[in-house]
C-alpha cells in the first residue's frame, strides 16, 4: 500500500490566524505548506519554533509539532531541539524585531554554529504586535511611530549581509507577493544541509501601508546563486534590499552533537571511588 501523498492543506491546522486582512504572513503560511508538501515531509517529523510577534504565531497554524516560546529566543530553542533530536526537520520562524533586535545575538551565533535547520524571518520593517514601533530594519527617516517621533535616525540592520559575515551558508530573500518563487526558496532552504536563512519581505498593511509599492520594487537576482562568499558579499553590498532569490549557497561544516555512548554511568562513577 502506498501512502497518499500529503497536500498543502494537510499541513494547515484549523486554528484561525490572528493576522490582519492583507497581511503578508498569510502568503508565507501558504508557501510553507506547499513547500512541505512538495518535500513530502511527514507532518509529525517537522517542528516549528517561534518567538513572539504576529509572525511568530505561525507554528499554531501549521499542522506539525510547534513551539511558541518567548520573544527573541526561537533560534535558541530550535538549536536545543535540533541538538537533542537530529531526526526532526526543525524550522524557526518569526519577525524582524524578534530575530534581529532582541534575538540579534542568537541570530549571529546560529549563523556561525550552522546547525541543520531553517530560519524564516517575516520582515515587515515594523513591530506589528506591539502596534507599530520601528524595528531594526526600519529606515532611519520613517516618522510614523510615536516612540521615535523624529524617525529612528539609525541605519538599517542588513540581515543578509550580516548573516553572510556571521557565517551562514544559505542566504535567500523571498517576497510574499511572489508565492511560487517563495515556495521554491523555502523548499530549497529546508533541503539545504545546514543553517538556511530566508528573509521574506512580508508587508504589514496596518502599520506600513507605504509598503504597497514593494510589488514594484522587488526584483529577482539576475545571476545563478553563488557559492563564493566574496562574490556574495559584493552582491549584498550593492543590493537595494529588494533583490529576491537565493543570494548565497555553499555547504559548510555542520554542528552536530558527538554523542557516542561508550561508558555506563557506573563506569564513570568509578573515578570517585577511593
Amino acid at each position, binding site marked *: 500500500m502506498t501512502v497518499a501523498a500529503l497536500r498543502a492543506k494537510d499541513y494547515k491546522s484549523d486554528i484561525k490566524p490572528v493576522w490582519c486582512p492583507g497581511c503578508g504572513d498569510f502568503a508565507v503560511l501558504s508557501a510553507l505548506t506547499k513547500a512541505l508538501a512538495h518535500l513530502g515531509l511527514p507532518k509529525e517529523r517537522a517542528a516549528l519554533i517561534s518567538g513572539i510577534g504576529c509572525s511568530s504565531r505561525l507554528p499554531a497554524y501549521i499542522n506539525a509539532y510547534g513551539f511558541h516560546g518567548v520573544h527573541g529566543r526561537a533560534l535558541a530553542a530550535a538549536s536545543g531541539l535540533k*541538538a*537533542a533530536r537530529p531526526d526532526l526537520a526543525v524550522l524557526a520562524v518569526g519577525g524582524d524585531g524578534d530575530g534581529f533586535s532582541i534575538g540579534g545575538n542568537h541570530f549571529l551565533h546560529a549563523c556561525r554554529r550552522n546547525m541543520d535547520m531553517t530560519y524564516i524571518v517575516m520582515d515587515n520593517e515594523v513591530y506589528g504586535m506591539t502596534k507599530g514601533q520601528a524595528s531594526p530594519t526600519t529606515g532611519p527617516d520613517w516618522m510614523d511611530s510615536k516612540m521615535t517621533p523624529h524617525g529612528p535616525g539609525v541605519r538599517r540592520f542588513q540581515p543578509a549581509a550580516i548573516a553572510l559575515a556571521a557565517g551562514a551558508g544559505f542566504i535567500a530573500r523571498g517576497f510574499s507577493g511572489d508565492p511560487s518563487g517563495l515556495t521554491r526558496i523555502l523548499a530549497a532552504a529546508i533541503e539545504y544541509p545546514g543553517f538556511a536563512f530566508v528573509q521574506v519581505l512580508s508587508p504589514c498593511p496596518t502599520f506600513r501601508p507605504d509598503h504597497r509599492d514593494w510589488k514594484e520594487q522587488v526584483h529577482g537576482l539576475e545571476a545563478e546563486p553563488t557559492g563564493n562568499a566574496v562574490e556574495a558579499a559584493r552582491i549584498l553590498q550593492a543590493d537595494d534590499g529588494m533583490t529576491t532569490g537565493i543570494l548565497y549557497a555553499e555547504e559548510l561544516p555542520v554542528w552536530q552533537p558527538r554523542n557516542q*555512548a561508550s561508558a555506563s554511568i557506573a563506569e564513570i562513577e568509578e573515578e570517585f571511588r577511593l
Partner: protein
Amino acid sequence: MNSDSSSARALSVAITGSGGSGAVTAGLILLEAAARAGCYGLLTRSSGPQIRGGESAAMVRFGGQPLGCMGDRFDLLVGLDWLNVNRFADEIPLDGEGVILFDPGVGAVPPALAGSGARQVPLPLKEQAAAIDGGRLNMVALGAVGAICGLPREALAAGVERVLADKGGSVLEASLACVAAGYALAPEPFVALPAPGGGTEGRWNIGGNEACGVGALRGGVRFVAAYPITPASEMLEWLAPRLEQVGGSLLQAEDELASVNMIIGASFGGVPSLTATSGPGLSLMLEGLGLAVASEIPAVVVNVMRGGPSTGIPTKSEQSDLNIALHGMHGDAPHLVLAPLSIRDCVFTTQWAVELAEHLQTVALVLSDQSLGQSRVITEAPVRTPAPLARRVEEEPEEDYRRYALTADGVSPMTLPGVPGGIYTADGLEHNERGTPSSQAADHQAQLDKRLRKLEGFDYGPAWAELHGAGPLAIVTWGSTAGAVLEAAGRLEAGGTPVRIIALRLLAPLRRAALAEALAGAERVWVVEQNHGAQLFRYLHAEQALPAGARSLARPGPLPLRPGEIVAAVTATA
C-alpha cells in the same frame, strides 16, 4: 594541641599561598592521603577573583566521622609564601594552640597571623625543594604536614600518585621525593591522627560540582546547554565529556538566555535537559523558566550560589538567591526549589530534581552554592532516589488528544515530536486544553489551578527534609548550612541540650503540614542561614510556618558559618 573541642578527633589544616604556589594541589593530596588512612575529610578552597597571582588556600579537615563543615579554628597553618595572606587571614581562625609551619627564608610570619599567638615552627622547606631536581616547596611542605599529623608515608605517596596521575613521570617522581624529604624533616608527630572511622571500602572522594553532575546523569539528563560562570563552570566542564560517553551532549551557548531556551527546546523534544549557572545567569534565565512552567516542559537549573547582588563575590559562598529562586518569575509560576544539604547530597538532590521535573512537567531549581560546589569530601557512596520517576509520554495518543488536558492529578498527557496523532503547539501564552492561545478568564484559571495542583498534590515522601534529634530547641536550616548546624547540634547535645534539626531539602512547594509536625512541641525555634536578609526566615513566616517568637540567625558570606557561632547564638538566649 587540641582539635576542635567538641568535634574531637577532627583536625583542621590550612595550606596558604599565592596563585600558582600549589596550595590547592597539596590540599587535594592531603585529603586523598587522609582518606587512604581511613579518615573522612573535607577540603574547601579559597581564592580571589584574580586568574593568576591572587591568593590561594586549601583548607582540609579530617577525622573519624563524616564532616559537613569547617571547624571554628585551625590546628595547623602551612604558609608556602606570604604574598597575599592578608586577604584570607580572617578565613583561617588561629589561636594559641595552633601551629604555623613555614620557611623563614620565605619571610617572617606576617602580623595578621603572628598576632594569633600560634606556635611558629620554622623548617627549611625551600632548601629541601632546591636539592631535588624539579622539586617544589609545596610538596616538601605536604610531606612535613603528613608527618606532623601522623599520616602513614604510603598514604601520602598514594595520594600523590592519584592526584598527579596525569602529570607524567618526572613530575610524579620529583613530587614523591619532595614529600619524602618533607616527611623526614618534620618534628615528632605532635597531633595524633584522628581515629579512622571504619574501613575505606565504598567511600568516595568527590567535589560538589561533580556530585551535581553525577546526579544529573543518574536522573537521566542527556542534554546540557550552558554559559560559563564561576563557581558553576566546573560542573559543566566535568559533564561535557561524560555526557558524550553516555550518549548525550553539551552545548556551550552564547549566553544564559540561549542556554535556558536551548534546554527547553531539547526537553520539548523529549530529552531530559539541564543547565547550571550562578546568580547573574539565573536572573537572565527567569523569563525562559516562566516559559517552561507555562508550557509545562521539564527543565532543571542548578544555581551554584555566590555572594551577591550583581556580580558580587564570585569566588565565595552565600545563600542569598533563595528569594529570586522562590519569587523571581513573573506571573503565578509554581515550580520546584530544592537545595542539597551536603556535597554527598548534591548527587541525590540533583537526581531527585531531574526526576521530579520530568515527572511533573515543570521547572526545578537546585540551589547549590560555592561552598558545596568547590569543595571536596571523603564520604560514603551517595544514595539513589527511592523510585525512579520518569516523564509520562503518550506513545499512542487518543483520538481527542489534548496536550494540556485538565486531569485530576494535574499532570497532562504529553506527546513528543515524531509521534503521529500527537501534534500540538507548546505555548507560553495562556492556552486552552488543546494548547490554542486563549485570553479567557476560565482557561487561565483552569490552567493555573492545574499547574499548582500537580505540585501541591504530589506525594514527595520523606525526602522533603532531613530530620535529626528531638527536644524543645529546634533549628530549621537549608542547603549547605545544614553541615554547620549538625555539628553545632552535636556540641549542644554533648553539653546536655538536645536539639531537633529540620534541614529543608524541598523549599518549594513548602511541605507545611510535615514542617508543622516536625516543629510540634518545640519551645524555641531558630532559623539558620547564610545571607543578610533572613530569606528563609521571612519565607517561612510569610507561609505561617513558624511559631511566634521564632528567631533568626542570618549572616551573609563570604566567611562560612561556623558551628561555634551557631552554638553561641542559640545558647545566648536560652
